[in-house]
């Protein structure tokens, strides 16, 4: 079997269930791949690790960071996009009085300064709220400032922070999802290098096929998938993981992910995201999307392996 490795964007959790399931079920082995799954961590750039050749594949930040990486000259190609809609939302407590985008004016909003701030600005711009109309502040790991009322709006991933907030009693939050305002930031891109695509297309093909089988199996057998995840990291909270895989299913099985199959690459959506990033000055020059995203492998995977 050929050795390969996958670098995740974060520690083991249900967000990456498909890969662990594919490995546990022997799907990679069946494709002749001996895959090692390497977790990520804070300040660990999966893009850099794949680009440098330290890892063969990567589940990296998302469309915006992939484009930034390609823009910076990293020889990366995305072969699939996991989350078909923005996996995070801007949340507020019902008593904050924020019901529309216009209500953001004069409020304190916290978000991650890791790209999410552009999404927020773009979303608010659609509601006529400019940069100077609200107070923007960085959001750290902790949600306490939001829970304690120090900020009016916080940012939460649908699969992680939102569940944390729910478990801490905030079940009736008002959500502002960027997609509802025509802004989409697709996250969790599956990438490899241009060299790997060129030199080992069969490896890439096998990897993607097995991965998709894994995801399909995971979403169809969630309890078993969570069992597998709990083995990978026994320290996790099972309930939290169960909630996560549900949320992950929602963001993956959406748009083309629902109609065409998991991890589908939707060039229309990509173009829109690309233009927003360019408009915000995140990228300096346009990027050739056809070069940055290569749907050819995904196209070759039989529909029954990727469609739920």
């Amino acid at each position, binding site marked *: 079997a050929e050795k390969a*490795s996958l*670098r995740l964007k*974060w*520690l*083991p959790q249900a967000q990456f269930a498909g890969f662990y399931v594919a490995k546990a079920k022997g799907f990679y082995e069946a494709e002749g791949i001996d895959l*090692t799954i*390497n*977790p*990520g*961590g*804070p*300040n*660990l*750039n999966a893009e*850099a*690790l794949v680009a*440098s050749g*330290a890892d063969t594949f990567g589940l990296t930040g998302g469309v915006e960071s992939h484009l930034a990486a390609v823009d910076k000259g990293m020889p990366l190609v995305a072969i699939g996009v996991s989350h078909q809609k923005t996996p995070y939302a801007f949340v507020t407590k019902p008593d904050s009085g924020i019901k529309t985008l216009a209500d953001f004016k004069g409020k304190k909003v916290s978000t991650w300064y890791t790209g999410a701030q552009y999404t927020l600005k773009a979303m608010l711009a659609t509601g006529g709220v400019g940069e100077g109309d609200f107070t923007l502040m960085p959001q750290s*790991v*902790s*949600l*306490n400032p939001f*829970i304690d009322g120090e900020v009016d709006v916080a940012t939460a991933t649908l699969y*992680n922070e939102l569940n*944390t907030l729910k478990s*801490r009693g905030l079940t009736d939050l008002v959500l502002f999802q960027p997609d509802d305002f025509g802004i989409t930031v697709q996250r969790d891109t599956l990438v490899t290098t241009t060299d790997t695509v060129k030199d080992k297309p069969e490896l890439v093909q096998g990897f993607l096929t097995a991965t998709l089988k894994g995801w399909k199996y995971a979403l169809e057998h969630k309890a078993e998938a969570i069992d597998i995840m709990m083995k*990978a*990291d*026994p*320290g*996790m*909270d099972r309930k*939290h993981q169960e909630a996560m895989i549900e949320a992950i299913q929602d963001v993956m099985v959406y748009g083309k992910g629902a109609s065409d199959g998991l991890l589908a690459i939707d060039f229309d959506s990509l173009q829109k995201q690309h233009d927003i990033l360019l408009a915000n000055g995140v990228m300096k020059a346009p990027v050739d999307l056809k070069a940055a995203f290569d749907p050819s492998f995904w196209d070759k995977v039989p529909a029954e392996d990727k469609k739920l």
Partner: protein
Amino acid sequence: MSAARASGGPAARVWQAVRLPLLTIITLAILWEGITRIFEVPASFFPPLSVVLADAASVWSYLLRSTGRTFLETVLGFLTGSAFGIFCGVVFAYSRNLERALFPLFVVSQTIPVIAFGALVIIWFGNTILSKVIIAFYVTFFPVTVNTHRGLLGCDPQKVALMKSFGAGEWTIFRKLRFPTALPVIAVALRLGISLSLIGAIVGEWFGDTVGLGVMLIQAMYTEAVPRLWAIILACGLLGSALYTVVSLFERKFIWWRQD
């Protein structure tokens, strides 16, 4: 305080040594539990000790495995870091030019936040225990170098002259005089170093490892599992104290004399 009075069996002496620390720990534990219970501090802010211990118990085998792994990395990093630190301190003590040229670079190296370069560490040293050991090594050697250098230079020049009068070469002077003179100062750095090494190992585990206290730590941090966070803090504290104690015991056994 005649020595006669301080005597007693080994058991009594051990008791004497652990009595106060134990008392402090028990007091702190009671305070912790009491305050959190009485004032009903939210668990997300500061959970009671019992909750923390219960949480630790729920994952005890994983916690134990993680502690073992971190322990191994720490010890390896500490040993290599101390050895390298002492070596560099010696080199610097003997070569002013090397010291002047390289020492600033050592300082620069210590100002680099390793956690900004997780990817680099993995690219260079791979996904192995080696990258953790390297980071533990990296944070350990500096204080050891500084103190070794200082300790070696702090030697009484008249004693050096005495050794020279015996025809001792630099190597002999080093072995028999300078190094023993520097030992107490080096020992201070070793005590700092073992704590730093543990920290290095833990941070090293953030770079894509699958087991270790550091892995559990970020999991807990980012899921805001506060009781788990405290459980890991306790585990780190326990491991760190144990290692520190071992180093201190070595120090007390081998470096008991007072400088004059």
